[in-house]
């Protein structure tokens, strides 16, 4: 029981981390990014290559892959998203366009990964030593993954709520029309937010590759789970993403342990469906 709870929290920590990235991209940059999970998988493979090819530890790989994720998303926003934002007459039109474009992007990234790495399940063994936590045995890599997710999550919360940068970003999320009146460059803020979201996806990828196997086609499932966590927590709510991510991780681990590992996605969907019926605005979202 405790063992499953700990494992569930580890998994949930990663979910919370990537969902924060997605909710920043959606809430501030207003881009619904369906290629999000494929960025995570790309980061998984990046870590794998650095670890098995160059013997670089995943923790150090973070320092390379996270900035790369930031830069890549920065350019994607500038080249692909910016023209769409400029031409969209309203937020609904932008939503549809961004969904379609990132759906195309999903296939491009997935195709590139398939060409390079093939479709097989991939994993590597890093810090696979048992550690005693609260009387149960947990692999050290999971523990490192959890701590890293906490550090990144806390870091992003600090930036958003305790710095001037973060205040600017939150202002854009809250009132994109009024923000320019206070001298805020909405375009630059959206680009920054999109890049930060991408950096979080990359960090999530590095973290998840430490303790899970992954394939080039698994991006869809990650996007799906991140989306569900975002909706569960309430669109644009970081606290919501954190709580919902941990919750989903625990639910999944429990279902896998006590019912059947093949039904984890079904369990995720059930949670999602119940939420849509009871409280569509999410746990921490505003109504409407």
């Amino acid at each position, binding site marked *: 029981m405790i063992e499953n709870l700990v494992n569930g929290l580890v998994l949930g920590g990663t979910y919370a981390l990537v969902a924060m990235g997605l909710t920043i991209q959606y809430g501030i940059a207003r881009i619904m990014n369906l290629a999000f999970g494929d960025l995570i998988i790309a980061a998984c493979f990046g870590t794998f290559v650095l670890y098995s090819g160059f013997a670089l530890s995943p923790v150090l790989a973070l320092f390379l892959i996270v900035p790369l994720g930031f830069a890549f998303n920065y350019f994607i926003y500038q080249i692909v998203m910016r023209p769409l934002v400029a031409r969209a007459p309203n937020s609904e039109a932008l939503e*549809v366009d961004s969904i*379609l474009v990132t*759906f195309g992007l999903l296939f*491009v990234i997935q*195709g590139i990964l398939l*060409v390079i790495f093939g479709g097989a399940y991939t994993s590597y063994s890093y810090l696979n030593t048992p550690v005693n936590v609260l009387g149960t045995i947990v692999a050290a890599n999971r523990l490192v993954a959890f701590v890293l997710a906490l550090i990144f999550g806390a870091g992003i919360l600090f930036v958003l709520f305790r710095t001037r940068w973060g205040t600017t970003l939150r202002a854009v999320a809250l009132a994109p029309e009024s923000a320019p009146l206070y001298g805020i460059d909405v375009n630059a803020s959206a680009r920054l937010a999109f890049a930060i979201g991408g950096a979080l996806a990359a960090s999530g990828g590095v973290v998840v590759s430490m303790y899970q196997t992954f394939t080039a086609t698994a991006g*869809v499932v990650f996007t*799906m789970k991140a989306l569900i966590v975002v909706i569960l927590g309430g669109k644009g709510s970081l606290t919501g993403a954190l709580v919902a991510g941990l919750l989903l991780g625990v639910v999944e681990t429990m279902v896998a342990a006590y019912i059947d590992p*093949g039904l984890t996605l079904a369990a995720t*969907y059930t949670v999602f469906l119940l939420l849509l019926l009871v409280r569509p605005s999410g746990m921490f979202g505003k109504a409407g």
Partner: protein
Amino acid sequence: MKQTVFILLGLAVLALLAAAPYLLSDYGTALLLGMTGYITLATAWAMFSGPTRYVSLATVAFFGIGAYTVAVLSEVLPYPLVLLVAALIGLTVAIIVGLSTLRLAGVYFVIFTFGLAELVRQTVTWWEVNVTETLGRYIFLPFEGRHIYWQLLALLVVTLLISWWIGRSRYGLALKAIGDDETVAEHAGINVPGLKLALFAISATIITLVGAIQAPRWTYIEPSIVFNPTVSFLTLIMALLGGPSKLWGPMVGAIPLFLLFEWLSANFPDHFSILLGALFIMIVFFMPKGILAKLEDLRAGGAS
């Protein structure tokens, strides 16, 4: 007078298409079969997503449900009943999905449909492994390519007729109003959720039938074969290229793209999805409303 000519012309084209398997090689028939399948999928997709602008990413979920139902039941029930059961299952799933998402903002629907195929695939796999213990099934139905083709052609004609009828009826106008502004439509006395649900259900049922009819082509069926996300993607590109808000739009997009995809998958099998994704991004960028609307714009631009 003009209308009669059109109807006669349409019937002549239809007769020619129906006779095509006798005129073409087996390869030609197979090509025509695949094309008819995709035209039907794209037209059915656009029936719902065109006017309402709700992007459905669940095409292959319904397609796969249809195909898999045939795989499970083809030995047990007579063929027409199998099709009926498949259609009913597709309809039920569509109503459940529609009821839980369509009264909310469009993005919930997109998110739900995005993972639906994966959910159904994993659930079917789990069921087959744990309950029936038969992963992978064989279909032995006495159909050749042309029999499947004729069924698909008939389904396509029905789909086009439904689409045409909806476009001309009061419902069509109501749907356009929903696509333009949902709040205004609601205030004008349109039952927005009910109409969206009905349309989504019809569209999903047709897609389920396309999967069911095409199932005998594979002979051997496995969840990973029939729930292949590329099907959703292709349908979406075709409908968007042609223009989902026009009756003939999906067809105009589907014919050239189907041939292009055939060529690409034969010559660049490994890079297929990269090329596809890039092409799709181009379409969204340069022809967001589709070829037909683009042509109209050009003509209007030239005339003024």
